[in-house]
């Protein structure tokens, strides 16, 4: 053994002291507040007719290839879910008795405090202009931690490509970039062709875009006008720490595949767990102490056996 006990103990104490010192300087997690122009979508299941114009417009705006892998003869664009070439998809909920139906448009929720950006070790995913959760492929190493972290199962990976990227909705930020927001009819509007494509083409305004504040106000107004029509909740107002994409629904949100999340964001929870483990450095010290004790015991045992071994081992 090249590391003797004295060296090991000395290193342990030094590391412990350093960790305790570091703990002392850490602070409670502060969330970056959302910008006033945080852009989002408001999707209303009672308005959607399932025409999928948004899916086609998304393909055109983001230059993604139709996914015909699930159709016989490859004649239709039939993504079963968000995938490596699909940033938005319209799904159908049918209750078991067939009495309740609802369409559901899935895309990135653009969380106020996203799990993916904190999971991303190099900052390939980050919250940028308008609070859009943006992807920078030049920083991505393909670890797919974002996929694991996202509570909505949104980021997708291009499994079939040699140099794969993460694919997710970025609220058409390439169209939004450079265009200026103007207030029209109480909404922040981009010139035609510069807003999120799905919302621009929707024939029934089932999905609209705007700043988060405007969308929240609109959602509240709709619920106040038709309290019988909606589940009394705006999904995304607080769920998972709040999201920039909001949902109004006439069926329970769980049925639409939206997870039940507390008002705490995933990074918040993760922060608490991580910092709980290292609280006062008690748990690491206990663990290292236990390991040290085991090593100490083993060495004592080995030393007491050593004379015999030396005699028997070397003739």
């Amino acid at each position: 053994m090249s590391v003797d006990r004295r060296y090991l103990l000395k290193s342990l104490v030094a590391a412990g002291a350093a960790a305790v010192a570091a703990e002392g300087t850490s602070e409670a997690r502060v969330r970056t507040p959302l910008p006033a122009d945080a852009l989002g979508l408001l999707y209303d299941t009672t308005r959607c007719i399932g025409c999928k114009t948004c899916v086609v417009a998304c393909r055109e705006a983001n230059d993604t290839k139709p996914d015909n892998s699930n159709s016989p003869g490859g004649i239709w664009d039939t993504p079963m879910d968000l995938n490596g070439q699909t940033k938005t998809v319209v799904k159908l909920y049918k209750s078991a008795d067939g009495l309740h139906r609802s369409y559901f448009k899935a895309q990135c929720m653009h969380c106020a405090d996203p799990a993916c950006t904190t999971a991303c070790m190099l900052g390939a995913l980050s919250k940028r202009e308008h609070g859009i959760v943006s992807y920078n492929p030049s920083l991505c190493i393909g670890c797919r931690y974002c996929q694991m972290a996202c509570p909505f199962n949104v980021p997708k990976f291009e499994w079939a490509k040699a140099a794969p990227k993460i694919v997710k909705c970025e609220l058409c930020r390439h169209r939004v970039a450079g265009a200026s927001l103007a207030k029209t009819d109480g909404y922040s509007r981009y010139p035609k062709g510069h807003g999120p494509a799905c919302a621009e083409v929707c024939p029934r305004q089932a999905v609209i875009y705007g700043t988060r504040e405007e969308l929240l106000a609109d959602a509240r107004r709709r619920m106040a006008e038709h309290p019988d029509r909606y589940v009394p909740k705006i999904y995304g107002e607080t769920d998972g720490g709040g999201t920039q994409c909001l949902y109004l629904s006439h069926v329970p949100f769980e049925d639409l595949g939206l997870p039940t999340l507390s008002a705490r964001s995933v990074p918040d929870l993760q922060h608490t767990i991580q910092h709980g483990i290292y609280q006062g450095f008690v748990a690491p010290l206990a663990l290292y102490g236990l390991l040290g004790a085991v090593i100490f015991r083993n060495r004592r045992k080995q030393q007491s056996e050593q004379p015999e071994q030396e005699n028997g081992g070397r003739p």
Partner: protein
Amino acid sequence: MTATGSTVDRRDFIRVCTIALASIGLPYAAAAEIAQAVARKKLKPSVIWLHFQECTGCTESLLRTSHPALAELILDLISLDYCETLFAAAGHQAEAALQKAMKDNAGKYVLVIEGAIPTKDDGIYCQIGGRTALEIVHETADKAGAIIAIGSCASWGGIPSADPNPTGATGAPMVLKGKTVVTIPGCPANPYNLLGTVLQYVTFGTLPALDDKGRPKFAYGRTIHEDCPRRAHFDAGRFVQKFGDEGHRLGWCLYKTGCKGPATHANCSILNFGEVIGAWPIGIGHPCYGCTEQTLAFRVAMHDTVDIERPMPPDTYPPIRAAQGHISPIATGLAGVVGGALLGAGYMASRKLGEKPPSEEDDPRKET
């Protein structure tokens, strides 16, 4: 006779102009401008209409549209100085008329080519007045103001160019390389597409925007599939499986019977052929056979299906939670065995690590 004279009344005239204008995307008000242009005699351009390897179907369909004004309008609008089908003259008289028209209107006349041009053996397979089609087309095209190839034969070869193509037939753009040739393919071509192009040239002196094959974008910019009246059946997956079946009688989608609509660029589905409603293949329950496309017509078998260029979503929806494959008990057992073996091996290896290092003589690696 004039455009507003006794043979074509004003209402008919404006009506035809409006249909043609709508097809080339000009505003309704331009009809008046065109009417004036036609009324002014000096704007009446000389047209030389050449016939080569063809069936004259394009001329016939132009003359036999259900709306009588169309052909008359063409004749009113233009001065048809040479056309073998419509000529009263024959022989040397006709050829003299051609030479005179070319001389008098050099650089201004509209050359309409109908039919493929044979190129094999110096083009001897099609001769008029002792001259080959190649010679005639080169000579007339040199002094033309605009060149229009009508029909698939003139546009890219058509039926005469089908395998084995014994005469080396090809289209006007291939013969007249370097010149702008407006192609109006179709077998036969929709007369309104010719009319729209000619009207624009006569009135404004310009040609419509063309695609890479010389086809006016107003007529050939979209596929049949995009505007097909049976499209809803395609999206819903309701296909005719064989001719005469239940779906065929109900007017379902003809894709599986070999419809070339998804790959064929033409406006048949939105502009009635010769103004007869439903008078086109899909309209009568036959799959589109891709007559405007060089890569399809007379090359791909009639009932072969084509690839969908850009698949669109169907009328179905994925469920909220996509079905995932389930894990079989055997796989679970296998994974358990492998995992257990690894754990055991790890435990044994860690125990080995604690043992004394083997002496040099005992090390089996040293023996090799």
